[in-house]
């Protein structure tokens, strides 16, 4: 659905994106994480067809996106700093979108009006920052996009509204197989929403993971053996991290759950507990040596 390959982008002589690859499947929600200045916004602007890549390929809906009207008809980009035409009311803005986007759904617009409960005849610039963001979502969702590109979308929204919008997105993804690409500098903000996570650092993609796989793949275990842990067991397990708390050992292990369980059981542990693992921890252990890069996005 969104396919980015060998993407390079330079502003004058400064490299902003360097050989970026990633892929967003149809009907999935992809979270693009990265600290400030990592190049997220540039990447999204390129995916939205605003900036032209220096090299590489950016295709959306199987087509090159730059200056591609028919693809852009089916895609909406919401930038981190919102923009509305000066002095426009919600209604006027809706009329503008209605003419520009062929798939404008007036019925949806009316329905969402009930959800958001904002005055359509009020100038958008007079709304608060959070309300303006609601208006932006309201207009965007009324376009019925196949691809939604969101740059830091939850800035300035309170928890209730955040949940409303999250539901809205999820619903469209479920109903219409909408594809969503979300950037964020905060993992917690998107972990309950995304299927996939990619981490962008200094213009490069550090890793890309399916969250379900990730959670199924890494385990936090407390074990205690009589005496020391068997060296054979240690080499058989893929241990990412190891800690001693008295006679109890804390292990972060990668591998299929059943396999790991049976392997440990076969060594007759005195204690064997599986502990819950937050996404944050998963990332820290997963990243290992490059962990420094994600510290900032885990705040």
């Amino acid at each position: 659905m969104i396919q980015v390959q060998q993407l390079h982008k330079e502003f004058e002589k400064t490299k902003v994106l360097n050989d970026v690859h990633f892929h967003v499947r149809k009907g999935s929600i992809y979270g693009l994480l990265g600290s400030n200045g990592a190049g997220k916004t540039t990447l999204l602007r390129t995916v939205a067809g605003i900036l032209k890549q220096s090299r590489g390929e950016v295709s959306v809906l199987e087509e090159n996106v730059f200056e591609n009207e028919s693809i852009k008809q089916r895609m909406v980009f919401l930038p981190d700093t919102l923009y509305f035409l000066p002095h426009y009311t919600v209604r006027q803005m809706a009329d503008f979108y209605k003419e520009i986007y062929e798939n404008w759904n007036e019925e949806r617009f009316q329905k969402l009006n009930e959800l958001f409960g904002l005055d359509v005849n009020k100038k958008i610039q007079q709304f608060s920052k959070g309300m303006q963001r609601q208006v932006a979502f309201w207009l965007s969702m009324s376009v019925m996009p196949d691809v939604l590109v969101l740059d830091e979308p939850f800035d300035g929204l309170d928890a209730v509204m955040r949940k409303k919008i999250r539901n809205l997105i999820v619903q469209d993804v479920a109903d219409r197989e909408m594809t969503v690409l979300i950037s964020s500098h905060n993992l917690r903000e998107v972990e309950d929403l995304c299927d996939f996570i990619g981490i962008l650092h200094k213009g490069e993609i550090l890793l890309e993971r399916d969250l379900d796989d990730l959670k199924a793949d890494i385990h936090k275990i407390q074990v205690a053996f009589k005496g020391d842990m068997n060296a054979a067991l240690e080499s058989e397990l893929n241990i990412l991290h190891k800690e001693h708390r008295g006679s109890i050992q804390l292990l972060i292990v990668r591998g299929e759950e059943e396999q790991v369980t049976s392997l440990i059981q076969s060594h007759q542990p005195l204690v064997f507990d599986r502990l819950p693992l937050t996404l944050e921890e998963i990332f820290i252990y997963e990243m290992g040596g490059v962990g420094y890069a994600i510290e900032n996005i885990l705040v």
Partner: protein
Amino acid sequence: MPLKISLFKKEILKQDFRNVGWISIVYFLGLFFALPLQLFMALSDERREYYGITFDRGLFDQTFLFDIQVLFLFILPVLMAIFLFRYLHVKTTSDFIHSLPIKREKLFNHHASSGLLMLLLPVLVNSIIMAVLLGIDGASEFYVFSDVAYWTAVMLVLTVFVFLAAVLVGTLTGLSTLQGVLTYILLFFPTGIMFLGSYHIGMFVNGFTEGVVYEDGIQNFSPILDLTSYYQPEEKFMPISYVELGVYIILAVSFYVLAKIIYKKRSLEAASSAIAVASLRPVFIAGMTLCFSVFGGIYFGESQSSLNWSFVGYGMGLLFGYCVAVMVTKKTWRVFNLSLLKGLGVYGGVTLLFITVLPLLWKGYESNIPQMDEVESVFLGNSYHHYQDRIDQSSGDMVIESKEGIQSVINLHEAIIEQDSSFDEGDRRYFVAYEMKNGDTIFRSYEIDKEVFAPELKTISETKEYKEIHYPIVQVDPSTVMKLEFNSGHNKGKILNSPEKIEEFLNRLKSDIFTLTYEDMIGPTGIPGAEVFVHSGNNNPPHVTILPSFDKTTQWLKEEGLYDEVMVQADDIERMEVIPWNTFENNDSESAFHHARANGKSGLTIKDKEKIEEAMKAKNYQEDGDYLVAFYFGESGRGDFEVLSFKKEEAPEFIKNHFNN
């Protein structure tokens, strides 16, 4: 239906109108104020019957506030372009607009056409109003229908031109303010660069006639100057010809095409950077460096008349221009670091090379002297302007055609090339125009010291031909003369009507003039006796000043008993005053005397008639004597006086004696 929608986005036009409709309205009101409203005011003004003004400038007349029209014409289209394309210069707006499913080309076309529409409507509506108002009684005194048509054509074309020029600049830059500034620079640029270039060449190439460039419509290369410099003595007022309108249309179309191409290729991340097209940045910096350097060189070189100062000027201009250009492109004044020096080396080197090479290309021009047998005729005067007047007035024969005459000018030309340099200061400007047998014209102008070239100037000046040109009176056919008018300006005068007398007088005057020496011509001897005007039905009668040294003429006047009536004599002079003069003051003797008096200097006052008579016949040097001598006329002793200047060695004894003691 979808096809129609995708071709034409009504909402974008609507948005443009909401955004910049006010500019359209202001433009309309401005023109409405300048045209229909002024017409009503003029019509109801009862005083107009007394003025009896002829209105020959149509709708560009002052009646219709020409200046206001020009102001609106050159400001509002630029504003329109700035506000319409402002979205390109602001990141958030740019991102929003370009994330919409509309191609850049379509966006550009939409905005450009809504801008054009909003600019052309005010012009057209005012045209229609003016056309309709022609029906009012009295309106046709001010303009006719063809004036409305011409006004409409000029305003439409120039409005479109200025707007598209500003649009083009807008696609090149990322800052709206810079867009405005650069647009006006663009509108002046061709004229400015021609001026700088020719002035620069003129400083280093001796004989180069910048005047030809300035006077030959250099202003037509800038629409602003083109429209405003219309005060030419033309029969039919037309600030811009139809050919020029055609050129503006072609340029406007190419601006449009160019702007569209640049917009399509433009990197949108360039919003808010000074020069959006990276490859143009060096061009911008080099251009600024060059222009400022040349300007600096010209300014200091010309105001100090010194080669060394001009080098200082080139250097300072270069440094300044380069730094400003870098500051503009970087949008900060804190640009001073090592890379600035490196760039200065590169751009400065290129600029200096260009500055040096340009005049060198004209070295052949400098030493080129036409061959005698290729020259048809020569004009020798002070300036190109002088030469143009000759063509315009076509009064008499003003060119040298004889072989000797042409050869003498060529000799002078050769001498100048050998001895003069373009930085040498002179006291006289000479302009030479050779008209060649093959139809070419060769212009040269020099500022020379006339003492250095006295032998050559003497040869030329003493030819009969030259005298005929500089004393048109000698070409007058006595049989066409109706009367002679003598006027000495000091309560003396005489009119001569008799044809015989006229002929006798003119013959004697001619022979006096033809025997004048070069020294007589540049330093006439004695106080001017009388001015004689030769009237033969011409508005501008030729005239000449009779000097005491005109022996044959004065002799004849005495024979006829007219001398006392006509010529100024010692008896007419109440007193004279002598003041020593430092000629470095660089003035003519009359202003020098005024200056000396204003400073309270006083000198020797003489009332003795004999001494006055002696002084009246002494040799006069207009610009470089040692004594200033003022002769006061009449009893009053106020204002009315004539100033001569004498050299020490040639001054009458009593003056020398007085000041030597």
